[in-house]
């Protein structure tokens, strides 16, 4: 079946062609399982080395490295640099880390695109990493203050006075928040309100979760998830499969209790993504460079937008806003897209939002709704609900999955979208 496209190519005159050569990721594993002893830079290094091996790219051919991450390990705040050094990449090659909640890796990729487009670099590795098996748990602010003042205290009596001020409450640790700083609301709570606002039923969510796990399992069994690397975890053997895919039955899903809003919420452990460890990486180049080095690029990266909305009530609606914008920018329509890879964070609310004239007119300032997203083209190899969602790494997984699906399914255009706390991104490929 040949579909006619509104445009033959999205290439723009005077704009450099930027290509994706390859994308990889470590297996995404439930937090607290096999990656338990890894630090974030270990995972990031594994993805980086995997990418270099898979592409046989010489270590000195890389111009720049960008990684995204959300919850930073304070010892390796520039995790990209630590991973690069650890991977044996020349210390002369710079690396930096970006953060933008769940789209941190998307931000890393667009940063790389910018570097190449500006002519600063030709070969950039972009990726993302997250580990929730270890988190920087801090002393309380009061305790930290006391400890810092203690450093400056000169005499024993000064120190004793300070120590005597410590109260039991000071010892309460501070966990990294998964709450929006501005609204103090957890993402799960916000998501549950969002599904209610869009009238997404519990049943619809259960069905979607079931679909995600079933499709992921199928893709895994069929060997379609070719981006997954084999990683040797010292003392625990080699891992080469995601371990969060658990296809069950609708009956089992129906039995689950809501996790965020109790007892009347609709989001359950199945319809929210589990805490995940993992890292991903993609190799981006200018087209000339790729060809000169003898690579056969997998896809062009054409357009992207970031949008942002009210952090309280529209926290996870980015894809709804960004999709029409990026399509307009590229000059194509929803029908032209062959492959959709959307982050599965409140995707159903987004589908409903895009299909609502009221929402388009009242909230997005558009004349009419975006349209119905063809679900038969969406996340056919599983998504964040089943594969997992290491916050900083998901963006690069989405892009790689979209590219690999384009190749496999023989499509031309793919669209990637993800929602994040505050911001949001879409790519055309």
């Amino acid at each position, binding site marked *: 079946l040949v579909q006619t496209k509104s445009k033959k190519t999205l290439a723009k005159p005077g704009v450099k062609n930027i290509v994706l050569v390859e994308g990889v990721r470590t297996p995404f594993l439930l937090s607290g399982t096999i990656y338990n002893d890894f630090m974030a830079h270990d995972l990031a290094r594994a993805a980086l080395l995997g990418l270099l091996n898979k592409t046989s790219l010489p270590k000195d051919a890389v111009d720049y490295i960008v990684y995204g991450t959300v919850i930073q390990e304070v010892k390796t705040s520039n995790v990209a640099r630590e991973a690069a050094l650890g991977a044996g990449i020349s210390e002369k090659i710079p690396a930096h880390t970006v953060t933008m909640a769940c789209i941190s890796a998307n931000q890393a990729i667009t940063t790389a695109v910018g570097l190449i487009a500006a002519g600063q670099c030709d070969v950039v590795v972009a990726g993302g990493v997250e580990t929730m098996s270890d988190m920087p748990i801090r002393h309380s602010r009061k305790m930290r203050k006391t400890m810092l003042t203690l450093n400056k205290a000169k005499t024993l009596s000064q120190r004793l006075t300070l120590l005597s001020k410590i109260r039991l409450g000071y010892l309460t640790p501070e966990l990294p928040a998964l709450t929006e700083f501005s609204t*103090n609301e957890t993402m799960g*709570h916000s998501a549950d309100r969002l599904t*209610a*606002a*869009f009238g997404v039923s519990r049943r619809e969510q259960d069905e979607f979760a079931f679909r995600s796990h079933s499709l992921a399992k199928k893709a895994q069994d069929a060997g379609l998830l070719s981006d997954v690397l084999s990683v040797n975890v010292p003392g625990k053997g080699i891992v080469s499969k995601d371990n969060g895919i658990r296809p069950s039955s609708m009956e089992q899903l129906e039995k689950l209790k809501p996790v965020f*809003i109790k007892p009347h919420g609709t989001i359950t452990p199945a319809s929210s993504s589990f805490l995940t460890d993992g890292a991903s990486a993609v190799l981006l180049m200018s087209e000339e460079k790729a060809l000169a080095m003898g690579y056969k690029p997998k896809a062009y990266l054409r357009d992207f937008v970031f949008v942002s909305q*009210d952090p309280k009530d*529209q926290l996870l609606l980015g894809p709804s806003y960004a999709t029409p914008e990026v399509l307009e920018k590229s000059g194509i329509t929803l029908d032209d897209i062959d492959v959709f890879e959307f982050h599965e964070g409140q995707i159903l609310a987004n589908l409903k939002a895009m299909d609502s004239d009221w929402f388009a007119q*009242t909230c997005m300032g558009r004349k009419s709704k975006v349209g119905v997203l063809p679900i038969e083209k969406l996340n056919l190899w599983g998504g964040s609900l089943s594969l997992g969602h290491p916050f900083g790494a998901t963006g690069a997984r989405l892009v790689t999955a979209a590219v690999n699906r384009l190749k496999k399914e023989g499509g031309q255009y793919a669209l990637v979208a993800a929602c994040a706390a505050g911001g949001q991104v879409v790519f055309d490929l």
Partner: protein
Amino acid sequence: YASGTLQPGVGIEPVTFLNPKAAALIAVKDDVAVIRINNPDSKVNTLSIPMQREMAEVMNEVWANGAVKSVVLISSKPGCFIAGADINMIQACRSAEEVTALSQEGQKMFEKIEKSPIPIVAAINGSCLGGGLEFALACQYRVATKSRKTVLGTPEVMLGLLPGAGGTQRLPKMVGLPSAFDVMLTGRNIRADKAKKMGLVHQLVDPLGPGLKDSDVRTVEYLEEVAVGFAKGIVNKSIPLTKRKGIMQKLQDYAMGIPFVRQQIYKTVTKRVMNQTKGLYPAPLKIIECVKAGLEKGSEAGYLEESQNFGKLAMTPESKALVGLYQGQVACKKNRFGTPEREVKNLAILGAGLMGAGIAQVTVDKGVNVILKDTATEGLSRGQDQVYKGFNAKVKKKSITSFERDTTMSCLTGQLDYSGFERVDMVIEAVFEDLSIKHKVLKEVEAVTPPHCIFATNTSGLPIKDIAAASKRPENVIGMHYFSPVDKMQLLEIITTDKTSKDTTASAVALGLKQGKIIIVVKDGPGFYTTRCLSPMLAELLRLLQEGVEPKKLDLLTTSFGLPVGAVILADEVGIDVAAHVGKTMTKAFGSRLDGGNIEVVTTMVEKGFTGRKAGKGFYIYEKGSKSRNINPAAEEILKKFKLSAPPSVSSDSDVQYRLVSRFVNEALLCLQEGILSNPMEGDIGAVFGLGFPPFLGGPFRFVDAFGADKLVQKMKKYEEVYGNQFTACQLLQDHAKDSSKKFYK
């Protein structure tokens, strides 16, 4: 009236009851009847007689229908569940018995609700107050939205009444004796999350953002869906009606089971009420009586006591005065000058002192950009800190988030120069009370602001027309007299001159309303209305002090008359320097009629630095951290130096009170007579909310009505014989004294 058309429900095809005249509409979702209350004649739902009748009919229909297994009660009004009983309904009654009958009717209806054979879930969004809360309390289960508009409470006490439809009986059982007293005796609004903690509601529902519909609409729909879920859950026993009690709760219940403990609580609460009200307000004591009757003599006695006391209270002058104030307050929250042509979006305040910063604080969180300008960095920084502290206190109380505090503070700019004044729509000056300084800033401001910019002066005494004399655009000049502390005092007195344009007035009122103020608009004149009333009272106070009445005794006499703070403390709060300054201006304007004590006393005090609370020393000594205040011996010395002999014929305790009050009241009436005030109601509101005139008296005008103008004139004549024209009753008062049918309030 809502029609009886089909209301679509979820799930099974809805069955609908035909209910053509109803203010309550029923839809059936599966086997749950959803009753949507929607008073057709008003923006809010109140429990009026027709509403009660219809509710009774609707409930009977529901109970008679065997297919219905449970009920959800919800309101279709945005931001309002049921705002309370209809005040007019109570006001229309001519006797205590009539009111008692109303109360009993309500009690009966709610008893039926309480004993309903099928569970009733109250789904609360918006205000659930008074009778509305009592209705909800009678239901078997309560779900409330966490919206900021959702508040629960029993404000009856503020109207001199009590919760008369079972509230005094159900609340103690539901939330325990101490909390029940707290709720009923303060009448305060309780937010949903607090209500859940207290055990007033079972479940909370989060407000939703915009989705496929408007967020308010969808939130109510969602509340209904969730409530229907709970109703079904109660029927199939998956949702328990009673919460498992914690250890603290069990302990408290055990303690409350001991009669001795209960007696102690009644005693403590009564003592506290007496301390605060001096016994001048009957309602709180009656509330305690009703609760006591219910717990000690059984519920039948309790309900009887409640309905009878409700009837009695409704007939008290205190309740009538408080209801009058409530109605006046509602009227003073409207802009009778219409919508201004331009909204004030950018406001500049000159002077970052207590006043200036206070005005900034109440404005900056209302979507208005505020420039706070001072002449020195120290003053500016102090002012900005004051604003920050105000919002930070709200963060600590969890009424706003720290993030909201920060975004609000971002709308405040502190500066020392006039930059940005070209964008300013209004300037409020709160600089030193000196005409030449006011003229100077007025000219400076007019040189840098756009032509439409309004110049509002926050003076407490200087006539606005004198200030406006220096203006190129006198039609844009207006007085906005705020009261300190601005964030606590509800009153704003707006003063117009002959030249002030109507649009300028409308704009000033609109801003004041945005700031949450109760507003009276008065004509220009020395001291306007409030300062003018206060001034003769302070002059008399000074004379009484010179005559040797102890400050503490004066404070006791004035608080026992009903003033919230003693008159001497009030003078210290206002500031002795301010009092001296105002006193001089007023005497200059009105001559000996406004004299009293010797002004030398206060000028000497000012010279010595005893300027009142702000200086730490006035008539009293104020020490940080200490609540007890001692007499300032040095001030006592000064008083001794200026000692006068007290004429025994006019120096009894009661004389002391009436000398102070009659001068205040007479001056208030004179303001109406002269047209400074446009009506008695604004005079009452101004006196109560700005000057602390005893609320249970309802204000000077209502006081004259209730006390009797003739009786007051008699008293004043006695004082006039001793002190002369300062006690000459004004013409208006004399007219009312001569003709007892003349009243300020019909």
